């Protein structure tokens, strides 16, 4: 996605995982009177929960910050990618649409939580309950679904507490990734408490240390992964800072290109208990 103010955002190729973060729109970017945005995803070849959360956050930011703003999405030309993206983005918010002649694709049952904005803990709790209930339909084991359902309120609570100025609130998205089979839960906000810090890397480390000392949400997610004997990775991204943890290891940090806001992504790598998602059924047309 180009970060210059222009009406077209273009995503191309593989936009899964940390790659998706390069397309997160900085809310500080000048809107320059542009009300109608086109989100061109026609050449996207791979998407996952990270892509869903990032795209939805950018859409929400535009709709929230531009009065009367609209977003149109050109869908990926590859049918399987379009199937997944359609369900990742879920029911689109008012002011955002696919072209009117777009046919709804076959549903991708791997998506267990379409990307959506969460503004309060009541909604977060409802979504946790939903993930707890439908995770097995997406192919997660009961243990994995329970883990992600327990993690969801913790991620949202962190976002609501530390990113109060986020124009997109906290956006969450969950899906089983098509190739790896990872069960992903991603939370993205566009607050600047860490990304706007002079030393984002130090701020990210400080945030993790605080969580460890206070037995906070991120520490719970890490602890529950160990407790449940699940092979879990956590990716934290804010500004130029990245933090990665995988069960059995310690936190590792690096610095890369700037991404606005804060992203916490949890991936549960498939274990022995997995089964295939339930058979897919065609979705009713719009």
């Amino acid at each position, binding site marked *: 996605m180009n970060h210059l103010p222009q009406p077209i955002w273009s995503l191309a190729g593989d936009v899964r995982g940390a790659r998706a973060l390069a397309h997160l729109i900085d809310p500080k970017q000048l809107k320059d009177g542009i009300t109608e945005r086109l989100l061109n995803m026609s050449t996207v070849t791979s998407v996952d929960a990270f892509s869903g959360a990032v795209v939805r956050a950018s859409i929400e930011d535009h709709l929230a910050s531009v009065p009367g703003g609209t977003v149109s999405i050109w869908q990926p030309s590859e049918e399987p990618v379009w199937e997944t993206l359609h369900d990742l983005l879920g029911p689109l918010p008012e002011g955002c649409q696919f072209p009117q002649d777009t046919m709804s694709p076959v549903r991708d049952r791997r998506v267990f939580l379409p990307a959506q904005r969460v503004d309060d*803990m009541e909604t*977060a*709790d*409802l979504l*946790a*309950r939903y993930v*707890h*209930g439908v995770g097995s339909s997406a192919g997660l084991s*009961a*243990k994995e679904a*329970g*883990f992600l*359902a*327990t993690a969801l*309120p*913790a991620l949202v*609570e962190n976002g609501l507490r530390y990113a109060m100025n986020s124009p997109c609130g906290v956006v969450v998205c969950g899906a089983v990734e098509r190739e790896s089979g990872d069960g992903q839960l991603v939370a993205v906000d566009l607050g600047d408490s860490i990304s706007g810090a002079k030393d984002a890397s130090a701020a990210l480390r400080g945030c993790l240390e605080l969580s460890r000392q206070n*037995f*906070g*949400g991120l520490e*719970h997610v890490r*602890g*529950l992964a160990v*407790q*449940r004997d699940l092979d879990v990775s956590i990716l934290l991204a804010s500004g130029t800072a990245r933090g990665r943890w995988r069960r059995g290891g310690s936190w590792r940090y690096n610095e890369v290109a700037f991404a606005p806001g804060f992203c916490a992504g949890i991936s549960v790598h498939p274990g022995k208990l997995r089964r295939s998602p339930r058979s897919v059924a065609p979705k009713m047309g719009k």
Partner: protein
Amino acid sequence: MSMKNITILRLDNVAAVLSTRERGREAADRLQDALQAGNVVVSFAGVEVATPSFLDEVLARLHTVLQTNEQAIAIVTGMNEDVRESLELVLRHRGMALGVLEEGHIRLLGGKKHLQQTMAEAEKLGTFKATELAEALKLKLPNLHQRLKVLREAGAISRETDETAQRGRRHDYQVLDPSELVGIG
């Protein structure tokens, strides 16, 4: 030693998903009030997800209350696997154990194996003096008192001073009778 009132504190009245420290503190207030009136069974039946944040607030308060209230019992029941995992994480973090009613028995969640054996023997006795339990476990009294302290602070047993004791200070210990708790959970 008489069996006190038992209050059933159903947490599914709070929500099916228990999250945030704020809501945990509210539940902890209710638990503290209930403990002032007698013994408490905290039921997680109907609760689908409980976050460690919520549970940490409840357990922190429970620990504080039980340190000063030797006569109260607080046990939990009705947990699904996910709630149980969250509870175990918090118990380990706090170095605590907790009395749990499951499958018709009072067991100990968290804590070391020897404490769980002590709990099982205490449950068999129901109401007992330390010497009786020491005899059943073939343990010396000082060792047993260490274990009883942990079980009491876990809310799994209560103790009251034996006013009839002729010499020294003696206590009567009590475990809730699981047969009186049938249907709870």
